[in-house]
């Protein structure tokens, strides 16, 4: 066993100490999801990549990993889309602009946007999977000339839980975006497309070798999307996936987020598909 130098190296970070940040805006998106705008002290940028996450904490309640929903091109503040699913998120949902929460991060790999330069970008978002992928979508829109087509496929359980209504309407109108929307079950008022997200894929006209797909959604969705992309003959090396796990510490120590030997908080949550194909626990 190699012996390690046991002195904490100079510049060793306080791994578990959050920075106090201010909530500057709260928007109700659906009955379950709110979008929070967060400002770090002094308005400094978070310095994240699309696809990364932060650990959000409320003292005395707890801490949880939340994906960053805004593009790094947004300056002075960042967005977190938060679904109310447990005690912590329920408490966060009660918070108002001006209140402060703890932030650690950004953590994880995120999308390496240099690899996307000049490529067509295909976004496949299921449900709340749109929240992290919005960071990528807005990055592409804010650097539009650097990328080819932007094709967004968004699937939701129903038309009553669709996210980012204003932006969605803008994407529908924007000639720079090809936006496809489907819901599993529409309400009587729904006039749009009905069907699961995979029904959007066969009809897409893609320049396959030049298209990079970015997939995020509920666990059940991935294998069906992979099948659909496979029958579309999209090369495997053109697929990126963002996976959900319980990233408790965010710094590669606590073990909760592991997929086989890979720490999602370090190597993920965005993975290049060929890199995780051999990880049997991935899906």
């Amino acid at each position, binding site marked *: 066993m190699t012996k390690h130098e*046991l002195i*904490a190296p100079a510049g060793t970070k306080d791994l578990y100490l959050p920075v106090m940040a201010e909530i500057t805006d709260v928007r109700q998106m659906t009955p379950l999801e709110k979008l929070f705008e967060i400002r770090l002290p002094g308005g400094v940028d978070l310095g994240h990549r699309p696809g990364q996450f932060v650990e959000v904490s409320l003292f005395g309640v707890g801490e949880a990993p939340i994906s960053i929903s805004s593009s790094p091109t947004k300056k002075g503040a960042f967005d977190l889309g938060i679904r109310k699913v447990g005690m912590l998120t329920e408490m966060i949902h009660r918070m108002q602009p001006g209140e402060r929460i703890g932030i650690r991060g950004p953590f994880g790999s995120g999308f390496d946007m240099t690899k996307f330069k000049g490529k067509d970008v295909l976004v496949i978002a299921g449900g709340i999977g749109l929240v992290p992928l919005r960071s990528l979508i807005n990055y592409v829109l804010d650097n539009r000339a650097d990328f080819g087509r932007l094709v967004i496929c968004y699937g939701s359980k129903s038309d009553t839980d669709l996210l980012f209504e204003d932006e969605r309407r803008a994407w529908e109108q924007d000639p720079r975006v090809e936006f496809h929307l489907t819901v599993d079950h529409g309400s009587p008022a729904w006039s749009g497309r009905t069907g699961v997200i995979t029904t959007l894929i066969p009809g897409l006209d893609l320049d396959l070798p030049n298209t990079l797909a970015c997939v995020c959604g509920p666990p059940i969705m991935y294998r069906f999307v992979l099948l659909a992309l496979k029958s579309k003959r999209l090369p495997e090396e053109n697929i990126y996936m963002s996976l*959900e796990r319980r990233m408790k510490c965010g710094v590669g*120590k606590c*073990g909760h987020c592991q997929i086989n*030997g890979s720490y999602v908080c370090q190597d993920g949550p965005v993975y290049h598909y060929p890199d995780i194909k051999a990880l049997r*626990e991935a899906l």
Partner: protein
Amino acid sequence: MARFYLEKGKVAAFIAHLQSQKTVYAPHRKGRNAFAFAPVERPQDVVLDYPRTVSSIKKYFLPPREELLSFNLAENTCAQPAVAPLDAVFLGVHSYDVHAVLKLDHNFVTGNPERNYLTRRQGALIVGVGFTPDRFHFSGSVGIPAGDTTGCDLFLHPCEGGYALEVLTPAGEKLVAGFKLPAHTSGLPAAAPFQQHIYVPQAKLKDVFAHNYDNAVWEEEAEKCMSCGTCNLVCPTCYCFDVEDAVDITVTRGSRERRWDGCMLRSFTEVAGGEVFREEPAARQRHRVYRKFKYISDETGEPWCVGCGRCTASCTADISIVSIVNRLVNDYDAVKA
């Protein structure tokens, strides 16, 4: 470096000599047949000839419960409690437990170095001791003979009438200084043999684990497993933890606490919304064993199991990690033959 003869009758005086310099932690008898590391109060209570302690000395560097932050809820602020170096001597540590500490060092130094662990660990001196393997020890199979001195400052080799005290580092030399001992001139007795073995060279384990992900043994062992997590709890190289917040009765103060956690527990991979990524006990059992023999080992080139036998000795369902690994080896050989 030097080697001295420490006769049995002088052991207590030697411990007192160590106590005059630093806090000394050593194995003590707890109950009828259990042993635990504890701070030494009376040298004569120290037990140097013991099979294994319930927990390793890991508990001093990575405490079972540890406050990471303290909160002032009225002001919505937090602070990090100061972590003090231990400046202590760990006396009577078996070779496998010393190796386990070196492995934890690796886990807490590489990637993101963790100050809490490193601060506690850096001043710790270790006095190893030889032992007679019982039916659970198998550290010899993972490259750690019973008399291995790696990572120790001093080592007590059991010999006729007492111990051969081997000095291994300048810090160890300083510990002994001032305590008069005769030189030990005869050869060191051979370390005691192991009763339990993994029947494969370490180098081959990589292939064995690469080919046994779907082995039936995972399901078979999971049939017996009660997912109690005891194997994680007693493992000297397990370091996974959970983090939880708590508030005091005034609801003005609180803390964020880290606690040992275990991958054998169903809740370990549960995410918000209720999805559990290793739902089946078989998947959890496999994960535990792969963590010890593949995932970290593929990077470091050595098993992350130190062969202490604790998980097997403490298992409430008689699941043996040695039997599992030997089964994987046999099945691998049968397929390759």
